[in-house]
């Protein structure tokens, strides 16, 4: 279990010894998936993933004080 320090956003913890295949029962059958269900779940996950913080577009706010290199990189060559 862990302790958290909110001010520096770090913490630490410890887990006990791991499990391993010698200590748990195993299925002799290959694991079969419900691929349709997982496909649908992936779609739902992606919608949720997009609910992270919005990425702020700063162009309209005029925060352009610092120039950076690379504004006009040419197209990238790719050998076919």
């Amino acid at each position, binding site marked *: 279990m862990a302790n958290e320090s909110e001010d520096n956003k770090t913490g630490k*913890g410890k*887990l006990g*010894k791991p499990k391993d295949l010698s200590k748990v029962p195993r299925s002799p059958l*290959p*694991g079969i998936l419900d691929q349709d269900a*997982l496909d649908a779940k992936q779609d739902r996950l992606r919608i949720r993933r*997009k609910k992270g913080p919005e990425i*702020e577009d700063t162009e309209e706010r005029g925060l352009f004080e610092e120039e950076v290199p690379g504004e006009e990189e040419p197209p990238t060559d790719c*050998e076919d």
Partner: protein
Amino acid sequence: MISILQNIALPPTATFSQTSSVGEPSVGSSAGRIFFSGNWYASESTDNGQTWSFISPVNHLPPPSSGGFCCDQTVLYDKSRNIFIWVLQYIENGTENVMRIAIKKGNDDNDAWYWWDFTPADVNSAWSNEWFDYNHAALSDNFLYVGSNTFSTVGSQSWKRYVLLRMPLDDLAQNGNLNFNFFQTTNDFSLRCVQGATSTMYFASHASTRKLRVFSWDESSDQVQQRDITVTRWSDVDPSTGGYTSKCPDNKDWLARCDSRITAGWFAKGVIGFMWTTNRKGSRQHPHVRTVRINASTFKVLSQPDIWNVDYAYAYPDVTPNDNGDVGIVLFRGGGNKFPSLVAGNFNESTKRWNLKAIIQSTHGPADKKWGDYITCRKHSDGKSWIGAGFTLEGGNTRDFIVPRYVRFEMVPTS
């Protein structure tokens, strides 16, 4: 120039035909042994890719009681401790889910996996009713880092935080108790660690479309530093459609699912680099790959060698440096007159640009308009060449026609 040393299509027996157009392949290799994972399979070769054995991520390792296997597998090989690292994400059960970190020796012929299971509440007891999603992993000299977003299990399942776990490689290799540190932020989404870290891990996310937020975590410290670095403005929004889009010759959109999260990072030769897929903007009329190279001493931007083309899109980059500090890359290109294609290359230190070589092109675009969410580049155990885990769509346009691909490539001096 780039020389392709291996380009191997994993056969259906390697995946039990359990493939997805959201391929998410990952890979690690130790000498002739290759461990490869993806949605929804894992596979191992002990003869350098000639033959493959299917390993079910569903039940090869007994699932935790809280929920069965979901997705988001990540594989690493740590040469310093000679261990394979296999990260698996399990299904959320309404109150939590498990992220498993499994280990076996690099030369193990006895399937001697052992593992630790983390729930968010195992990291911090205050994080009940949260679940992990979208992990990635990276190494420094002495630690494994595994990061993940967490989301609420209740209500609208909103994003809660990003958590980065730091675990001693010695603990992982010794099969005993596992100590860990963690960093968490409730401000920054989908952080990405660099590959190739030594005594300091660097990781980053977007603070805005004009600012990259770069974090550094020294191995000897419990504290994390952060800096905001100004970069050339990029766009997360298509001016017409809002989201990402790139139509293949059959009018199938292979980037409808894409977004701008950082998918690649490296540290080598005193340079920190990060890469992500950005939307079209200005003269760049297709989604493409933004790159930022940063001086690790001054944290000043050195250059921004983006990867783009006037006729088609580039997306989903991943990178890693080899033992010489040369940076290898795998990514996709597609759209316009091209179906999604796997591309490999390296960063040319002389020209400060990317050398790229197309490896193979799909025959179709995805009918379900899904691709990604990540592919993987690692250094080969020879320390010189790179390996990549990617995929193509061959012979049809549904997930049944996804072909996972293992590639190995190296940089060859031009005569």
